[in-house]
């Protein structure tokens, strides 16, 4: 199955994280917030101005910017 990045999901799409390529201090923070390989993640909605994006992960809702989301690789779960 093909790997895509988190920011290309549509609202309601469910996926599994395969690789977290974000660098810098955000990397650590994203790990702590549950963005680890293997986590299931769903795109909930996009902010009215198109950025950031809200996801559901580990049973709660988390928003991140497209910039970071485009560094997180996922596999879609059909």
């Amino acid at each position, binding site marked *: 199955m093909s790997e895509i990045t988190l920011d290309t999901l549509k609202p309601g799409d469910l996926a599994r994280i395969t690789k977290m390529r974000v660098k810098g201090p955000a990397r650590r923070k994203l790990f702590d917030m549950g963005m680890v390989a293997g986590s299931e993640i769903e795109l909930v909605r996009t*902010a009215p101005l198109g950025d950031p994006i809200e996801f559901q992960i580990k049973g709660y809702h988390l928003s991140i910017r497209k910039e970071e989301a485009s560094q997180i690789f996922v596999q879609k779960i059909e």
Partner: protein
Amino acid sequence: MENTKIRVALAGNPNVGKTTLFNAITGSRQHVGNWPGVTVEKKTGIRSYRGYDIEVTDLPGTYSLTAYSLDEIVARDYIIEEKPDIVIQIIDASNLERNLYLTTQLMELETEMIIALNMCDLALERGDKLYIDRMQEILAAPIVQTVASRDIGINELLDRVIEQKYNDKYHGREIGYGDIIESKVLEIEKILLTDPELSKRYPLRWMSIKLLEGDRNVRTKVGKSHVSAAINELLASIDQEEYEADIADKRYVAINAIFPQMCTRCNVRMTKSDMIDRVLTNKYLGIPIFLALMWGAFELTFAFATPFTDMIERIFLWLAVNVTSRLEPEWLASLIGDGIIGGVGAVLTFVPNIFILFFLLSLLEGSGYLARAAFIMDRLMYKIGMHGKSFIPLLMGFGCNVPAIMATRSIEDEKDRLITILVVPFVSCGARLPIYILLAGAFFGRQAGTVVFFMYVLGIVVAVISAKLLRSTIVKGKPAPFIMEMPPYRVPTLRTSIVHMWDNGAMYIKKAGTLILIGVVIIWLLASFPWGIEYGSEESYVGMMGHFFAPLLEPLGFDWKMTVALVFGLVAKEIVVASMGVLYGAGDSPEALTASLLADPAVTALSALSLMVFSLLYMPCVATLGVIKKETGSWKWTAFALAYGIAVAWIMAFFVYQGGKLLGY
């Protein structure tokens, strides 16, 4: 007999009801201060219970205990260095999985732990099944179910605190990280063990894990030890980034293994919140609703505050009249009447506004909407070099810059916060409005409304340009990444909002009160001496200052009287109007002042406009400067705010005045 003291620390994720629990335990016996050396707020409180004095320290809300943010460092350093008797972790029962991530790290600090499982009612209501006994067994820590917003479970929690202090039945359960990591942990531990100083002071397993994770803060702790070379050598041989990812991953793996035994049918969607968000963060409705809410908040603030403001104004007017007419000698009457009562009165009229503003802010925060506000505005704010969280503080600036700067505390990133603090003073606060009303009213007739509106827009434009400018010069770098939990919507707790309002309002009165009193006395001295001159006249020191500075301000179209009024305005901007009243001999009557301004050939419509621009930008009032010092913890940045404001004001007013003259006005 003296009560036995038990020191308790409250830890937990943000948005789990930590503050509510803290208030429920300690009631009104609280003390708000700062953690030593940093600008993170520290709250402590004492509760006397069954012959014990339970001293509670509210640690900053964190998701983790890395060196990622100041909050996390403060929280873990308190636990390691100050060694509280008990650490209570407040866990949101409806969000176990992520909350347990912090638990795994707290347990590594080898402290006595109790878990307060908060908001159980919400979890049960939506159909979660919680197995408390099993949870207690697995985590090896006592668990108390609480609903802090309704005071449920508080006494039981305190009972457990006392029990746990004398009975270490539970030791907490640490998780394992698998062969590869564990063998490295052992290796490091062995090295650390050779330094008795370190092994006495810190939990070594924790230290080893943190070193593997590449934690800079822990590395400095080891830095002075003789083992530091051996540690560095070992760490250089491994791929730390890999370890960092692995360790976080293993924590979640461990949680995944135990979590289904503690709770079934958990992880259902937050349907109610989702439905609300479908409207409040809707693509088309989100922004209009946001703006309407903010507008409503301001309307509400002024509607509620106006009767109180009027009352305070009347009281101070009455005081001024009566005190001045009765007090002897005359200079004392003048000091108290013209100086202190006038100045302090001007500040106190803002108190009702500020209290209500803080109350509403706390309601927005408690409801969960504040996170949505940042979510909605982030794109726009990011474009001008700021963070979504900067928007609300900037908006509050229209009411008063002081609470606005205090509200920047919700911004974690130091640089983001600094920029916001530095640009807030350009947002036109309520105290500047009387200046516009007077001058625009006198010189611009039917265009007055447009001119006032232009002043507000100018303030915003200068704030935006300043933010961009600061980002590309002295506060380099991009805004911090936006990584933010969207907590479920909740009904805010009234008590928490009232405590929040009270703490911050009291701080304003204390801070503003002291600084403004000092400012007022200095200005009064300058306006009253040398001995025997008329108050605030040309011969007074302040008049001399006016003449001295006038050449500097002459290119802006100001004469010495306007300069003096601006000097007075340093204390609080609304004093500019009152002091113009004095300088033009018009007293308190706005009609008389308007007439004498119009009659003065030195004041034209153009110089009036220039004066408005200058008043808007020239410098934060002393109360704002005081709070900038407090929140940045730096005289350097306070001085910068002052100098930058004056420079910007001068340049803008220069362009307005000289440009206007060129255009033939």
